[in-house]
Every structure is written in C-alpha cells, then in structure tokens.
C-alpha cells in the first residue's frame, strides 16, 4: 500500500480542488435482465471556468470575439446592471463580497489537501477491494489442494485393498502347497513303515547284528 501511495503522490497535480460527491443512485437491476455491464464513470466532468461558467460558453464566442470576448461581455453586463440599477448595491452586497472572499480564500488554501485526503481514502478502498480478489484466489487454491489430497488418499486406499486381495490369493496358494507337501511326506512315511513286514524286520535286525559283529571284529583286529 505504501508503494501505491508514493506513485499517487507523483502523478497528482497540486492546487486543484476536487471532491468526490457520491453519484445519484443508479438502479442496477431495474429490469429483469442486465445483459451489458454497467459502464465505468468518466474520469473528469465537463470543464468549467472560474467555477461557475461552463467552458462551452467561451468556446462558443471564441470564433467571433476571440479570447477576451466573454470577459468584455461580462464587464458590459455588469456595467449595465449597475447603471440601470437592476443590481442594487445594499448591505447584502457587502456581506456577499465578504462571504465570497472568505470562500475563495479557504478553497485556494485548503482545496488540494481535501482533494488529497479524499483521493487517498478512495485509493485505500480500491486497494482493499482488489485485495478481496486475492482472497478468492487463495481460497480457490485451498480448495484445489484439498481435492487433490482427497484424491490421493483414495488412490492409496484402492491400492491397499487390491494388494490385500492379491496377497490373500498368494497366501492361499502357499498354504495349499505346504499342506500338500506335508500330507505327501506323512503318507509316504506311513506307507513305508507299514510295508516293513515282521519278517523283513527280523531279517534287517539280524543283518544289522551281523554287521555290528563284523565291525567289532575289524576294530579288534585294527587295534
């Protein structure tokens, strides 16, 4: 906001007295539809000389009488009014002169300060309004971020669920294979043990004994 103030001070003219009168209320929605946007206000109004006579009057007389024409007209008019006493000089004239002098002095001296103050408050309000637009942008960004984070959360959820289901199938397969293996081993073992008949058992035991005897003989012989 300070930068804005500095810019404004450079471009403003001094010794001008403008003040901002609030415009007559315009009906924005007088009809149901409002297709065109409301036009912007013009920057400055029609030119007026000495505060009371519009510039058009001077331009109107310029081709005929030049620059001094309207002033001569004014002078002649005043002379006529005074001499024919259409304008009567009385106490009210004196009070009017005094009032006019005070008004002109005040305007000349403090006019530009009032202008500056009003333009400042105007610019501040404009700056605030522009700032509100930035708030919209920030809020929009916030919403976008929330949406994106939500989407990512959901993606993660989906991923986890799919992984869980696939892991389940994998575990199932593993379990099946493990059970099959164990069952096969047990079955083979039990069958083998069953197939050892008592006769075979006796034979195997006697052959083991004979082997042990021969081993013992050999070891005795070695020693």
């Amino acid at each position: 906001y300070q930068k804005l103030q500095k810019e404004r001070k450079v471009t403003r003219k001094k010794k001008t007295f403008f003040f901002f009168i609030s415009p007559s209320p315009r009906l924005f929605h007088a009809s149901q539809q409002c297709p065109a946007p409301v036009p912007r206000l013009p920057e400055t109004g029609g030119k007026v000389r000495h505060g009371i006579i519009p510039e058009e009057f001077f331009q109107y007389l310029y081709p005929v009488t030049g620059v001094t024409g309207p002033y001569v007209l004014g002078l002649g008019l005043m002379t006529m009014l005074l001499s024919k006493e259409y304008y009567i000089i009385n106490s009210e004239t004196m009070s009017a002169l005094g009032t006019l002098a005070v008004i002109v002095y005040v305007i000349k001296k403090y006019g530009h300060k009032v202008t500056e103050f009003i333009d400042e408050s105007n610019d501040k309000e404009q700056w605030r309004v522009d700032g509100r637009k930035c708030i919209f942008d920030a809020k929009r960004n916030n919403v976008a971020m929330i949406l994106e984070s939500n989407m990512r959360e959901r993606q993660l959820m989906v991923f986890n669920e799919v992984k869980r289901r696939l892991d389940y199938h994998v575990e199932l397969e593993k379990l099946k294979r493990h059970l099959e293996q164990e069952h096969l081993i047990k079955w083979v073992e039990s069958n083998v043990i069953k197939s050892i008949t008592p006769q075979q058992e006796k034979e195997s035991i006697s052959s083991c004994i004979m082997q042990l005897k021969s081993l013992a003989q050999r070891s005795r012989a070695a020693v």
Partner: protein
Amino acid sequence: MANKPVLAEQRLLDVKLGDLPPWFAKADYTPKGVLGAFRRGYQRYFNKYINVKRGGLPGISMILTAYVVVSYYFVYDNTKHDMWRKHH
C-alpha cells in the same frame, strides 16, 4: 433513415432559428412530456458534472449560483426600495 433526429426531439440549442415555431408546436406539453424534459435535463447535467470519478466544486457551485440569481429575481420587488437614484 433520417440524417438528423426528428425536429421535436432535437435540443433547443440545436434548432435553427427558422425552425423554432414548428419546434414549439411539436413539443410535448403533456405532464408526462414536461416531466420527461425535466428528467432529461437533470440527467444531462448530472451525468456531465457530478457522476464522474473526480467531480468537483463546479458541479454544485453552478447550481448554487443559478439559485442565487433566480432568488434575486424574486426578491427584486423588496430590494427596489434600496435604490440609490430615482431616475436612471
């Protein structure tokens, strides 16, 4: 397609001198017309001098000056007694 607007709708300052009686004849003297003329004048003045971003002192000072001048006309009969000379 008329090049200029219809005579009745032209502004008084744009009417040529010879065209003046027809203008007075065609003008709208109904209450609605008169009110419309006042409203148009009001809007023209306001849009030119007051409904601007940097309006200023001339906007209302012209109104006040006009008020002073018109009120002087109505008070003249009382001020007559303050005349300095009898014969001008």
